[in-house]
């Protein structure tokens, strides 16, 4: 049996996509003019790194936390770990060159500012996030225990 050709789909959408590719090609030729391989690697690499590395990693970490807490019978505590961890990780993801100190020398000599504070401030923000979350959980657990009728015990 000979496979039938791929159907066309909506002609209007096809036209829209062709126009989009034309503009992307016009800009893309200029984008790739200097170091086509490097830029292409960055463009495709960004998508692959996100979809096949970053996302699976944090999804897996999330699953480990929720399953782990679930095994301990505390699945409802997941958000108290997820929120501070994700917010702290988000700040690290955005500001890792400054936090990690990889641009220290250039930063200091260009801006005249000290590059030392970023790691400390990120750690402090993370501590406040985790500490605040733990405090909130403790308060809620305490309230729930108080409210629980004695018959349950």
């Amino acid at each position, binding site marked *: 049996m000979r496979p039938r050709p791929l159907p066309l789909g909506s002609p209007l959408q096809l036209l829209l996509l062709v126009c989009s590719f034309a503009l992307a090609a016009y800009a893309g030729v200029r984008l790739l003019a200097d170091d086509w391989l490097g830029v292409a690697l960055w463009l495709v690499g960004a998508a692959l790194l996100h979809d096949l590395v970053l996302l699976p990693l944090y999804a897996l970490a999330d699953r480990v936390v929720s399953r782990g807490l679930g095994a301990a019978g505390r699945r409802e505590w997941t958000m108290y770990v997820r929120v501070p961890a994700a917010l702290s990780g988000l700040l690290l993801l955005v500001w890792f060159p400054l936090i990690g100190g990889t641009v220290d020398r250039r930063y200091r*000599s260009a801006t005249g500012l000290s590059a030392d504070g970023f790691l400390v401030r990120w750690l402090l923000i993370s501590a406040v996030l985790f500490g605040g979350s733990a405090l909130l959980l403790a308060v809620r657990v305490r309230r729930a225990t108080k409210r629980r009728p004695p018959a349950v015990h």
Partner: protein
Amino acid sequence: MGRVPFPRVLPAYRRIMRDDDPRLPSSPGFWRSPLRGTWFTSVLGLVLLVGITVLFLTGLVSYAAYNPGLSPVNDQTPDKGVLGFYLFAWPTNPYWLYRLTQGLHVTLGITLIPVLLAKLWSVVPKLFALPPARSLTHALERISLLLLVGGGLFEFATGVLNVQLDYVFPGSFYPLHFYGAWVFFAAFVAHAALKAPAAVRAVRGRREEREEREDRADRDSRADRDDLVSPRPDAATVSRRGALWFVGAGSLLLFVTTAGQSIGGALRRTALLAPHGWADPGGGPGGFQINKTAAYAGIDTAETGAEAWRLVVTGRDGRTVRLSRAQLLRLPLHSAALPIACVEGWSTADQWWHGVRLRDLAVLVGYDGDPPDAFVESLQRHGAFRRAALRANQVADPRSLLALQVNGEDLSPDHGHPARIIVPAAPGVLNTKWVARITFGAL
């Protein structure tokens, strides 16, 4: 569209999909989060539709602010072709214009990162969906998504790295970010046109409530209607609404730890992680943010001393005057309160600049009426903006100065001693520091 494209393999796909085989990411059953669904994706998508449109427009505005059409030295993307169709003469009013547009561009971009990540997370099952293409249009749409996701992440990554001076990207920031923006925007417009109507319908129709009702209903029939909803979801640890608040909290956290670098004053302290947040360099009259220090720019103090330094001003018919700093200080001096606003998004509050009006310097070399364009050269030996062109409207503005002092004292070396340009609403790098030569009318 409804026809069967690959008769022999499709039954296998169908079987896997119907069985919700949890081992393969191509099967909907692999994806367990109860949060995914059209409503959730649509809300995030509509936020990005507005946000990325603002980012694109403020980005185009920033390119125009450099006056790239005026002189090759102002233009980092000379091969732009029709992509520069919209360029216009950059105004000097309001004097905080670039501070606003570029602060918005960078701060909004950073604030949108959690929304972008959440949006990509919410649609990741579609990346693995089979069959790879249902029609030619669908195949092209999926290729276009590579430009959308790759281009979008490329734009956010180059922007975030550039403001941290981490120049690891393959080339100069300006052409990469400018042409990359057009590639991304081409895919973005197509994606928005294809998806926005359904997203608006989903949000208007309060799909969330229906989805939640459907969560309890028959899963197979529902999965046909919304292929983002997991057919075998885990028990929820947070509601869809709660997850949106979570994304919003991420955006808020990034916003409050960044925005202060574009507001300045006491609020700079609140920008805990932004490159030009937290503190100002030193104190006193020169204690405000520096783009590039004298040491970084390679300025030799032997060239800036009172004996050595002369400003060379050239004008009509090659008429030239050479002025020492003392001679400049004897010319009529004027003041202007203006900010420094960088392409990196940070800016300073208004500083009190004191110096000679550029249009007065033009008069010295034969331009008595309306002053012409000007070409400014720095002592700086290398760096993309050691030379800059100013348009006639910028030269003519009474607040445009060759500044000699700031906040009541002589300029510090890092702020451009012996003399620097300051022009209202111009991007920071066009306010040339360590000025050596100004040529009027010769662009």
